[in-house]
């Protein structure tokens, strides 16, 4: 049975992915602050903003001898605000959760996911035929340059660079790493955006629709079966002009 570690597994994209994997006979360990998730998932409480909490969860992974075939890093926090209005604590939190945690996970999970010369018999040499895969989440807001998304997209742009760089460094260990940048998804944050701004956002992408969870799950399935690495893909095209600042902030 292949194994997956899913961060942010208690809600949103992380929850949906964990549930999808469980339905497809994966063993899933979910990391989240609430330590909840779909039925059948193992859980571990972790706050990825906190080095102590993260380190404890990592140690728990070693003690379980849990070597993931798949890492899905879905934990994250989207924000919308004009850069000049961003307080220090929100900047710190965004960096910690949206980028530093990804750096930590890729660095440290590589040690668990690489095909090891001294693998213990119960762990095996990876149980999924397409090998080891790391999946991170960016946002279509990175190439769109939407106003109000500076802090969030700076972190996500860093994450995209992490994917491109790490793909090269992890390739000798047969670990692939890719990222998906979804368009707007129906979340509480999206619903808090004024309707004119929602329209402006959607009119700047093609097709001009929200990204569904089914699209994200289908993309994940293609990644699991595929061979690509270092790829950043978006759920929507973005050939149209960006909305004006007045329309979205």
């Amino acid at each position, binding site marked *: 049975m292949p194994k997956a570690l899913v961060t942010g597994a208690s809600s949103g994209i992380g929850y949906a992915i964990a549930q999808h994997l469980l339905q497809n006979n994966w063993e899933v360990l979910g990391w989240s602050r609430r330590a909840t998730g779909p039925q059948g998932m193992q859980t571990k409480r972790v706050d990825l903003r906190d080095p102590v909490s993260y*380190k404890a969860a990592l*140690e728990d992974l*070693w*003690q379980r001898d849990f070597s993931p075939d798949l890492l899905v890093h879905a934990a994250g926090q989207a924000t919308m605000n004009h850069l000049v209005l961003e307080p220090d604590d929100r900047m710190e939190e965004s960096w910690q959760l949206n980028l530093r945690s990804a750096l930590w996970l890729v*660095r440290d999970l590589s*040690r668990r996911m*690489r095909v*090891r*010369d*001294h*693998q*213990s018999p119960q762990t095996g040499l990876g149980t999924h035929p397409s090998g080891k895969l790391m999946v991170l989440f960016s946002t279509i807001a990175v190439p769109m340059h939407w106003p109000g998304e500076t802090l969030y997209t700076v972190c996500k742009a860093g994450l995209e660079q992490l994917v491109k760089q790490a793909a090269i460094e992890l390739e*000798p*260990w047969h670990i692939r790493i890719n990222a998906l940048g979804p368009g707007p998804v129906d979340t509480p944050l999206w619903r808090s955006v004024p309707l004119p701004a929602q329209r402006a956002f959607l009119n700047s992408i093609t097709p001009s629709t929200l990204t569904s969870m089914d699209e994200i799950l289908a993309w994940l399935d293609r990644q699991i079966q595929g061979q690509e690495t270092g790829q950043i893909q978006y759920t929507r095209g973005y050939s149209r002009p960006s909305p004006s600042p007045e329309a979205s902030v």
Partner: protein
Amino acid sequence: MNDASPQPPLSIGSWFMNQIQDYLVRRSIPLDLESGMDSPLYGAGALDSMQLVDLIMFVEDAYWADYGQRLLLANAAAFSAKRSPYRTLGSFAEFLDIQAQIQAQDGTPNHA
């Protein structure tokens, strides 16, 4: 790991040498070890940087498999040292010994 895991030996030089030889055979790397612990490990004519990273991971895995203790050998202590602890077999073995003792006292390993 469980309590039945063997404890690390007081001196791990011979264990380390066995790991190096095992690694070089597995990776088909023709590194000259005739100088024993003085043999150059990293740098001109020896391992390149990616091979060194691979070796560090290999030794960490082997230590976990043999002794049930997790080590991080690529840490701040290694990178802030005036002379690289990876430069020769002997310097790496000495660094490994020290790190094993420090990290055994501290509990979980740390990148800091």
